[in-house]
Structure formats: C-alpha cells, structure tokens
C-alpha cells in the first residue's frame, strides 16, 4: 500500500482536470495568438479559463496573467515592481523614466523571513543590486504580526510581499489586515501635499506601496477574493490545487505599477511574453473552478484525528506552528531525539511519503529556514516531520502511518547516543 502525505509538495492532477486538458495537445493545438480558426478555437479555451480564474478571485479577466508557475509569478511581481519604479533597473520605456518624479532610485521591499525561496531568493538577488529589503520575522507560532510590518515601512518602500499560508507549517498570515495597512499608508501618501511645487496634476511624486502575496498554499482553503484581501498582486500555482505542473497565475490589479521582466511578444497584456500554453491554462482554470466543491471539512477532521492519535502513540512530540491558525491539510510536528530524514526514509521504505525540515534532506547543512525563523532550536528543526493531507487520504492511511512511525521512532531513539 502506497500512501501519499505530501500534498504541499504537489498534488495529483484531478481526472476532471486532465480530461478537459487533453484535447488541447494534439487536436485543438492552434496558437491562441493566431487569427485563423485553429488559433481562435484555442483562444476561446484560454478566455474561458481566464474567466474561471477571474471568477475564483473576484476580479476582471484582464487582471489574470498566466505564467509558467508560481516561481515565475513571484519573480514577475517583485522584479516587475522594481523594474517599473526604478528606471536604472530596466532599459526600455514602459516603466518610469529617469527624472520622473515618482521614480525611486533606492527602492525598499518588505517581506518575511519565512517566505518560499521564489520570493526570498528574488529579494536577495535584488539586495545585491542595491535594493533595500526588510525580512520580518514571524512570531514563534509562525504568524507575522501586522505591527511588525508597519514598523518597517519607510518613505522609499515600494512593495510588501507576505505569503498567505506558509508552505512548511501551514500557518495563515493576516493578509487582509496587512492589505488594510498598506491601503492606509497609501491613502496618507496620496493626500499629503506634494513635496515639490512643480508637480502638477496627473503624476504625483508619491511612492505608492504595492502589496503582493504568494497564495500558493492558501488557494485550496482560504478566502481568495482579491478585493476583500486588498492585494495588488497574488501568485497561484496549478500543481498545488490538483492541477498540472508548469502553470501559475499572477493576479495583477488594474493600475498596479508592474513591468514585464522577460522580452518577447505582446502576450498577457505585455506583462508576460511567450506563447500561451493552452492545455495547462485550461487545466488551471478547471482546477480553480473545482475548488468550491472540495471537502475541506474531511481533511480537517483527518488532521484532528492524526494529531490526537500521534500524541497517544508517540511521546515527546511538539506541534510546529499554530493549531488554530493553520490550513486543514498541514500537520508539522517535531519528534524529539530523532532526525527527520531518517524518519522520512524509514516511512518511504514502507511506501509512505512525508516531508521534513531537517538539514539532511535539503542538500545543505542548515535545517529549514522556516523553522529557524520561528526561533526553533536546531534539534527541534532536525526532528521535524511534515504531513500534508489531501482529499484522497483516509483514516486508515493515518492509522497505517502511526503503525509504521511508532516502532521507527522507538528504533531511532534506541539507536541514538543516550547522553545528548
């Protein structure tokens, strides 16, 4: 019996998603940008998928940008914002130009210390180019405090990027509250007197802050209505929501200052050149549409059951994150006195797939940056196990996990030196 408990890594493609994708590989293969009937047939499918995505997010279809995945969406959101407001970062003319009063020469970005690498590494890359970045630390339970974001806001802040749900510990971040904060700051900036008397109507010299959220791990479970959340930019991934890999979406609110980061044709309103990938776009559209009928309650009950049973069967467990403020599918625990990769491997040999934040599984010697950002000890981080549940998981599978894990933990605890 093979059991998959790693849904935050990826999900299987729903058969109903695959079904609607298939005709767009070999039969309806036209390039959506072509004027002839082959192209128009494909474009119709793209338009329908875009509409489904727009319905899901509560936005206009023109605000949906299809990308190759959430990593690209995150890159576009962050680099594209910097490229727009900082002329020295880009060569062409679609953003602000040197001398524009709203141009920022030393942009500042606020993000968090436990973002996905797609955001974190993009910010680090920009730091090397002179962009200032603040990495706000979460509280020990894995929640970002809005006040901590507010403290970091400076006059040259152009972007706030905070993930909606953390991928390792499943904690839900106060996106709506941060959205309100950004709105408040922007309103203050818009209503204050222009600093230069030369500034006439039209362009002001105020720098407005854009608000981006990487919502990859939230899409299945949380309120995704962009206007209710107050976000300007939002990244979504296809393969975390029972859709295909290689497709993502960046929601870009109308009027958001954003510039393309790659060059080519006029696809995706000039923001993302590249031939539209019809089958994958159709797939993500369908995956989004199916979300409203998914059974989150079932997953939540499974998680409750699993955590209760784990505690009954294995001693010295610690829950990582925040039980109340986390998505139903995520259970991240640290098992004291055991190394995470050994547990992962032991479970894998029995056909059970989980994940860990241990250094030994990451290719580096450092444990998960997420767990370390919570202020956790190295030992606790090394002993972490992430179980992420999905729709197809059952109670029997949870029982099987415990049945295998319990003796494994005992074995590894016995194997370890006693004086550590």
């Amino acid at each position: 019996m093979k059991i998959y408990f790693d849904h935050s890594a990826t999900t299987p493609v729903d058969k109903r998603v695959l079904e609607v994708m298939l005709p767009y590989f070999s039969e309806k293969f036209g390039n959506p940008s072509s004027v002839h009937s082959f192209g128009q047939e494909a474009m119709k499918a793209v338009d329908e998928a875009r509409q489904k995505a727009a319905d899901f997010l509560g936005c206009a279809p023109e605000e949906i940008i299809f990308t190759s995945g959430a990593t690209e969406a995150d890159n576009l959101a962050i680099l594209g914002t910097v490229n727009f407001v900082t002329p020295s970062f880009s060569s062409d003319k679609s953003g602000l130009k040197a001398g524009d009063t709203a141009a920022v020469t030393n942009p500042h970005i606020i993000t968090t210390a436990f973002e996905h690498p797609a955001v974190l590494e993009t910010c680090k890359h920009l730091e090397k180019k002179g962009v200032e970045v603040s990495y706000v630390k979460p509280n020990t339970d894995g929640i970002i405090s809005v006040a901590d974001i507010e403290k970091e806001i400076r006059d040259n802040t152009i972007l706030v990027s905070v993930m909606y749900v953390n991928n390792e510990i499943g904690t839900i971040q106060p996106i709506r509250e941060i959205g309100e904060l950004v709105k408040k700051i922007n309103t203050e900036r818009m209503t204050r007197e222009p600093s230069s008397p030369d500034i006439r109507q039209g362009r002001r010299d105020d720098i407005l802050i854009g608000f981006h959220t990487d919502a990859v791990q939230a899409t299945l479970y949380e309120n995704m209505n962009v206007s209710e959340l107050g976000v300007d930019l939002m990244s979504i991934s296809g393969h975390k929501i029972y859709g295909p890999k290689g497709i993502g979406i960046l929601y870009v609110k109308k009027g958001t200052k954003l510039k393309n980061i790659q060059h080519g044709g006029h696809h995706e309103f000039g923001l993302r050149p590249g031939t539209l990938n019809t089958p994958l776009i159709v797939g993500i559209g369908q995956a989004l549409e199916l979300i409203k009928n998914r059974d989150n309650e079932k997953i939540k009950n499974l998680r409750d059951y699993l955590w209760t049973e784990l505690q009954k069967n294995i001693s010295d467990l610690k829950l990582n994150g925040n039980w109340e403020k986390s998505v139903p599918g995520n259970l991240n625990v640290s098992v004291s006195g055991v190394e995470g990769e050994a547990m992962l491997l032991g479970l894998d040999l029995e056909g059970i797939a989980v994940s860990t934040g241990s250094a030994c599984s990451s290719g580096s010697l450092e444990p998960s940056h997420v767990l370390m950002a919570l202020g956790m000890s190295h030992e606790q981080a090394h002993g972490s196990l992430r179980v992420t549940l999905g729709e197809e998981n059952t109670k029997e599978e949870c029982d099987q996990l415990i049945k295998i894990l319990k003796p494994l933990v005992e074995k590894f605890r016995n194997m370890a030196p006693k004086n550590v």
Partner: protein
Amino acid sequence: MYSPIVLEHFKNPHNQGNMPDADAVGQVGNPVCGDIMKLYLKFRAEDKDKPVAEKVIEDIKFETLGCGAAIASTSIMTDLAKGKTVAEALKITRQEIADALGGLPAPKIHCSILATEALEKAIEEYKKIISNL
C-alpha cells in the same frame, strides 16, 4: 537517491548498540549539525602490552543520531574497522566508506567524514586515558 547498500545498512545497521565495558569511546558531531555519532571499541586482550597502533580492534559498536547516510556510514565503518589494528583502521578514508556503501550523494559526504572522525576521536580519547595511567 541512496544506493541499495546504504538502504540495507540503514534498515539493518551492523554493530549497532552500546558497550558498557569498552576500552575506548569517542563521540563526534553535535545537535546543531544534526548528526551525532558515538563509537565504542574493545581491543584484543592479548595485545594488552602492545603499542596502541598495533592493538587489534576486536569488537566495535556504534550509536548514531542522524540521517540515513549517517547511520549507514557508521555501520559500514564499523564493518571496515573490525579486526583491523588501530593503525590500519585509522587509514580508512571517507572515500572507502562511500565506496563500500556503493556511493553517497554529494550532500552526504560529510556523513562519511564524520564516521572517520568518530574512529579518530575514540582512539584519541583512549590515548589520553592510557597516558594518564
């Protein structure tokens, strides 16, 4: 990712356990790096009066807290060291450990290094003890 030999040693490690009457004990690693290895050595009784380098490792046991590669590396190292003289055992390289395991993934090379260090540490500790006698 792991060779079948690594997985076999991971599942059924050789010479695993502690040794209350060990002649030499060495522990390396720390909780920060995540791997801790403890090694116990018993020398052949008839080598009692021989120099340390010539003593034969008659029995060896290990305890490890760590990943699959760490467990497998210590396990195979004990196989390689058992029956060798101290001088011979100290010549075991990380490469020999990795080779004997059918290869280790690049990020896991430090596990094989740690295994050689555990042996060095046990011998070092033993030398300290006998020099104080």
